[in-house]
């Protein structure tokens, strides 16, 4: 087992909450070269340590918090990836978040944090370089995410410490719960909140001052990192993201693209978007731009409401997903109320996407008579009714009453429970609520929703190649906005040009693709062991059954032919068979021989 020469320290911080101890978990050069870091390394741990059917809320279940080899270097922007078995879907999931956490983990001398065990009473822990301290979180328990964040900062007496915390939703085990990083950034799409809550872990705080990421060949690495950054700065198309963040996409997808989700995917045409979209926010709300470490794109927009019911609210957003799910998806017309819903989710530690999907599903189910107000403790949500939605969010976060417990299971389980044809408008893939892109208007997005490991995730890559590139970006822990989306097909060269001098490797551009296929195929094997196959790689029923009634993509529908084409393309690209199961030859080619027996057993068990 060789120690890494550059890019990594070869050390993952292993936290055991059952005993409140920590140790160094060595990670070898070979593993890092094969799985890179972040999402890939987390997938490696999951696929090698878990057996099929593992309960994600077991005491020894883990959450891997991973930066990547480029984090903490002169590379353009870095992110942190949270990997865990997802309690909402029962599948392997990963969630990426921005801010400054990734760099601090590296500068503290760690390649990642592996958290397992379950504390007896609420705890949090701090990591300052080599020093790890477990602290009592009983006073933080029940507090909102920004209160816990502020308490950690004041406890550490360090305004520059970086935090990751859950809110009441995660503590109470609401399945939509997420982790909020540094108050405004969220790691949501692995529904990691209830896992932290189950472990009685409120969160952690990290500051690194002692170490620098080792670089094997500094001059060449800096040249490559510089090229990568320049390529970003030069892209004119990204001016929009700089100006409006992703919030500007709200108007774009309504007016031009025909994929803005509206009222639980009933249409994509929502003229009221001009009152709640990016330009409205730019005019009345946003006050400044904020960036993750070393990022020229600064997509986070902070603003303050100066009138209305929520006057004085300082908030981040709307982003495309939060504005879509909490705006057009709920038929909101009042900007302040929409921002308040988004901010309430962040305060409670709820995923905007899953929560927005839940609220919209309940609203439609009530509209169609599948649910009665009596089933919801008297709640009567209607499109655009911000006050009721606010109350529903509060009840989900606290799992309060019959309605709260019912809604906190997410759309898939609610629909299964009520039946009455509600599956026709339960918009989930593999048990997870869809993000804000309607795949009838944005067909290439269907790859991300259906073929991605997470299921229902907008951020897995549009197209088979993009799936692979996204897996690399998430493992390197780079933001896709500053990497693959601007580099396109040239990503392989740009990335290997950076990695080789950084780590002392000799990766060729084609190795980039092999590595990506290895990571995705390992993740796929994990999910195949849980019974996933092509039957699960499908969009919600509505996408095949109902034509878009209005908008630029009027009459568009996702056809069986689209589905077949997408399956053939993706399975073909990754070397999986017609049922979406990785073939033995593919496993061998990816260096995943150790998973062949698992796949064969899964084929037999699930009749695949």
């Amino acid at each position, binding site marked *: 087992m060789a120690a890494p020469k550059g890019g990594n320290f070869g050390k993952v911080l292993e936290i055991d909450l059952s005993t409140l101890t920590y140790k160094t978990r060595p990670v070898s050069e070979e593993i890092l070269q094969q799985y890179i870091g972040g999402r890939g390394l987390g997938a490696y741990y999951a696929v090698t340590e878990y057996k099929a059917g593992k309960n994600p809320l077991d005491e020894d279940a883990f959450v891997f918090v991973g930066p990547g080899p480029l984090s*903490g270097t002169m590379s353009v922007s870095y992110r942190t990836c949270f990997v865990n078995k997802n309690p909402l879907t029962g599948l392997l999931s990963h969630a990426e978040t921005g801010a400054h956490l990734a760099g601090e983990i590296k500068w503290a001398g760690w390649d990642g944090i592996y958290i397992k065990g379950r504390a007896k009473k609420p705890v949090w822990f701090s990591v300052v370089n080599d020093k790890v301290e477990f602290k009592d979180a009983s006073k933080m328990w029940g507090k*909102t995410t920004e209160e816990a964040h502020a308490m950690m900062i004041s406890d550490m007496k360090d305004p520059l410490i970086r935090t990751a915390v859950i809110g009441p939703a995660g503590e109470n085990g609401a399945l939509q719960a997420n982790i909020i990083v540094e108050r405004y950034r969220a790691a949501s799409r692995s529904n990691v909140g209830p896992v932290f809550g189950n472990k009685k872990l409120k969160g952690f705080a990290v500051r690194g001052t002692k170490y620098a*990421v080792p670089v094997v060949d500094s001059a060449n690495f800096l040249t490559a990192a510089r090229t990568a950054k320049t390529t970003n700065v030069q892209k004119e198309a990204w*001016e929009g993201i700089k100006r409006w963040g992703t919030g500007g996409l709200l108007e774009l997808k309504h007016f031009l693209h025909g994929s803005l989700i509206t009222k639980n995917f009933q249409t994509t045409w929502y003229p009221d978007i001009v009152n709640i979209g990016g330009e409205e926010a730019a005019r009345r709300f946003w006050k400044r731009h904020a960036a993750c470490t070393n990022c*020229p794109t600064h997509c986070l927009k*902070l603003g303050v409401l100066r009138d209305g019911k929520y006057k004085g609210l*300082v908030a981040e957003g709307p982003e495309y997903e939060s504005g879509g799910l909490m705006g057009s998806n709920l038929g909101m017309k009042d900007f302040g109320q929409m921002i308040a819903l988004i*901010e309430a989710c962040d305060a409670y530690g709820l995923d905007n996407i899953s929560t927005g999907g839940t609220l919209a599903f309940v609203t439609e189910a009530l509209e169609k008579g599948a649910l009665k107000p009596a089933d919801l403790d008297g709640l009567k949500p209607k499109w655009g009714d911000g006050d009721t939605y606010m109350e529903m969010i509060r009840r989900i976060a606290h799992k309060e*009453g019959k309605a709260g417990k019912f809604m906190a299971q997410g759309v898939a389980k609610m629909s299964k429970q009520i039946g009455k044809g509600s599956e026709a408008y339960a918009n989930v893939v593999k048990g997870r609520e869809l993000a804000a892109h309607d795949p009838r208007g944005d067909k290439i997005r269907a790859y991300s929703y259906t073929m991605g490991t997470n299921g229902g995730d907008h951020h897995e890559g549009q197209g088979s190649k993009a799936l692979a590139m996204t897996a690399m970006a998430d493992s390197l822990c780079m933001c896709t906005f500053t990497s693959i989306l601007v580099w396109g097909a040239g990503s392989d060269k740009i990335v290997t040009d950076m990695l080789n001098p950084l780590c002392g490797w000799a990766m060729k551009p084609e190795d980039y693709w092999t590595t990506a296929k290895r990571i995705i195929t390992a993740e796929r094997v994990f999910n195949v062991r849980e019974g996933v196959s092509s039957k699960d790689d499908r969009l919600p029923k509505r996408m095949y059954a109902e034509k878009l009634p209005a908008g630029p993509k009027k009459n568009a529908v996702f056809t069986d032919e689209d589905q077949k084409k997408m399956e053939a393309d993706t399975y073909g690209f990754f070397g999986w068979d017609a049922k979406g199961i990785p073939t033995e030859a593919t496993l061998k080619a990816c260096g995943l021989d150790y998973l062949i027996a698992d796949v064969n057993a899964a084929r037999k068990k699930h009749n695949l």
Partner: protein
Amino acid sequence: MDEKKLPDVLQKETTRRDFLRGTATAAGGAIVLTAVGGMVPKKAEAQYSVQAVAGTAPYAQKYLFAERQNCTGCRSCELACSLFHTGTARPAMSRVWVYKHKDMIDLPVICWQCDDAPCIAACPTTPKSITRDAKTNGIVLNEKICLGAKCMKCQEACPAKYIRGNPDTGQPLICDLCGGDPQCVKACHDQAGNPQGPCLMGRPVGIGVNMAYRSVTPEEAGKDLANLLFYPNVEGKRVVSVKTKKGR
């Protein structure tokens, strides 16, 4: 590269940076790196000799300024500074740092190159451990005689509360202006596309403004900006009526 997208109203002459940009277009960025990132630390002459390349006066940037409101908190200044001075990306070693105020405001904390240099006046050693370089106007530390963590009189004297301790040696981290070519300024300008323009600037004269700004502490500057931008919620509290207790 399309220069229109990178407005730089403060540098009207052809600067070294523009020159390098132009060259970079032809040479695919490699030249920029040789000059900007690929330098070997601790060989001061080698670093600074690139000044002459563009034909501009050497040591032109004798003062730093910050348009604090434009800061996005990306910390590229910290990375560039630490890279220049230590050869590694390590913000804790940076001579410029980004302060975060109430989760709302990011702002750079810089050395204002005070003309009366209270830090130098406060330095108790003979000769002084920190001195001003007459040519560059930068403040230079003599690591051999500085008393380090047990002294830090310079830190106490700094009206801007700018000076931090080196986490390895305990000695103060003070801005030497990279010998007249501040790397933080370049890094900030490279974050081009900020609709508001870059935050950090280097100028040949201080015009006394530096002496006014220097008395503003990071916290005071944070309060100012919170007032300016986020009024009426200057404390940045989350005022959604989030009830955290059960019961209805």
